[in-house]
């Protein structure tokens, strides 16, 4: 599509010009997209004087590592980090377990009403969260679960989300049927097939679900906002919000904590990029 601007060039010079234009756009836009994260990193290591300086200081000298320490202790971030990790791990485990169970049922086992229930599952994908938000809150209030981690963890053990079930079911359907038949003939129960054949074969798809589950719970703001009220129960998202609410903000400390919250997500992204992209792509295929 870029060729259109290059009509007057011919052959090789046209190719060179096209490549140059592509790189120009990539570099220009790439700078704009990369800049905020670089600014986040750079500010988190600045001294107070360097924060508002012009021309902007991109590489602080010296690195003020103390920002992290001061910010960390100012808001009990050790505890927030622990709480967030606990919720994320427990909820993601639940999602992996129950979503893969449901997906196995939908992909491999025939039972009455299966197609109908699967259609219901797909319909819930489109259900806006606001329409269940308030009654769910009232349910947890009734159960006496407010200001505990339970509302943020327990629902994950009930199917783990329609999208993940859909994603896993699509993957399970690609596995060769003969393998399951053979196992059945050899007398393996469906439970054994699930644990000893299906799960080990599905590591890539399960990794995708694990990564998305991790992101979902790690980044969640609305859930903790509604359900957690005492500061010792706070997650990182709520801890970081306290910085936003302060009247006197020390931005280098706010950036330090924002970076700490972002770092695990970026690390997971870099180490598991292929699973990550696969999951995003799956969201597009279902249309």
């Amino acid at each position, binding site marked *: 599509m870029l060729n259109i601007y290059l*009509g007057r060039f011919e052959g090789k010079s046209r190719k060179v010009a096209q490549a140059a234009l592509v790189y120009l756009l990539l570099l220009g836009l790439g700078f704009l997209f990369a800049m905020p994260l670089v600014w986040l990193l750079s500010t988190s290591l600045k001294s107070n004087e360097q924060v508002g300086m012009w021309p902007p200081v991109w590489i602080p000298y010296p690195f003020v590592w103390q920002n992290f320490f001061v910010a960390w202790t100012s808001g009990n971030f050790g505890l927030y980090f622990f709480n967030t990790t606990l919720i994320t791990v427990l909820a993601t485990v639940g999602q992996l377990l129950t979503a893969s169970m449901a997906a196995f049922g939908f992909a*491999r086992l025939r039972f009455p009403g299966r197609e109908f229930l699967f259609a219901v599952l797909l319909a*819930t994908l489109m259900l806006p969260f606001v329409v269940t938000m308030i009654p769910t809150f009232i349910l947890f209030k009734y159960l006496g679960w407010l200001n505990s981690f339970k509302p943020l963890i327990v629902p994950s053990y*009930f199917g783990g989300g329609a999208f993940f079930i859909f994603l896993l079911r699509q993957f399970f359907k690609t596995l060769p049927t003969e393998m399951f038949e053979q196992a059945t003939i050899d007398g393996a129960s*469906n439970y054994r097939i699930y644990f000893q054949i299906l799960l080990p074969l599905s590591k890539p798809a399960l990794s995708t679900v694990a990564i998305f589950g991790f992101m979902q719970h790690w980044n969640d703001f609305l859930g903790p906002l509604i359900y957690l009220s005492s500061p010792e129960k706070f997650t990182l998202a709520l801890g970081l919000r306290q910085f936003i609410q302060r009247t006197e903000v020390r931005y280098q400390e706010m950036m330090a904590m*924002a970076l700490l*919250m972002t770092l695990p997500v970026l690390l997971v992204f870099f180490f598991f990029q292929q699973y990550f992209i696969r999951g995003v792509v799956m969201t*597009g295929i279902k249309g």
Partner: protein
Amino acid sequence: MSQESISISDGGATESLKSRPRSVWASPLRRREAFDGIVFIMPWFLGLIIFILGPFAAGFYYSLTEYDSLLPPQWLGLQNYQRILVGDDRFWVAVYNTVWYVMAAVAPQVILGLLLAILLNQKARGITVFRTVFFMPSIVPIVASVSLFIFILHDRFGLLNETLYQVFGIVGPNWLTSPDWSKPSLVLWSLWGIGGGMIIYLAGLQGIPETLYEAAAIDGAGALRSFWKITVPMISPTILFVLIMGIIGSFQIFTPVFLLGGTNYGQAASGPMDSLLFWVVFIYNQGFFYFRMGYASALAWLLFLLLVILTLIQFRLAGRWVYYEDEATNR
């Protein structure tokens, strides 16, 4: 269905299974399979009842009552809806703000996202590095990225206004404290996360066979023509998907609006002069700040109904512009 083959493949032993009536309960094997299937989907099914269908129905009931979550709900009939639609000016402020944002944010998501994907689909050295650069912002936790933008958009010493002033001599606006600029700030923030949609498009683009473009080139089609005649039709299901999900998501945007709106103003966040009073923020304030659960439920149900109507309209219109390569196998 592929599972049908379970009963063949070992000759005589299972032959009898095939000849029996097709009822699920006909053979012990099928009975066990059906039983196991129900066991495996049971956690999801219970969750569906407890956390989705139950609350869904309860929400509608609450929307017809006055309910502070302490005393039992008081029946009101349609009064909440009536009060919202004709008696509450702030509801219409919230609708205006939300629709403003949806229009300003979804169009770039759909159009710029596609153009960006086309750019990143070029065969150029180091292209994967660029893909990473554009995609990364979309995975940054929202609270972190909003913190970052609050700093970058600071009136006096934010990077944006500093650059505008020092480089271009322009005195930048009060991004976050002016009612005119708070929504554009939000759009700016959403543009940074455009890479999420871009990746979906990129996958779609890579599914278009190269031969189509080659054939078009041989027939003398220019780049613009192949874009409109090949790229757009082939990727139209993805465009529809990004559009529908973008609209559903943007109508429900909460976290960044709530965080930006609560920066300097009271506890019930709504931004400078209610300029960041969005639909879901309004629901949150009514429900969790004023404990008007019935009123908030009615607001949520109105949003739900609107989204259902909008989605149905889009599916209806989709028949005119979305091209499915293989209607028969497309599920």
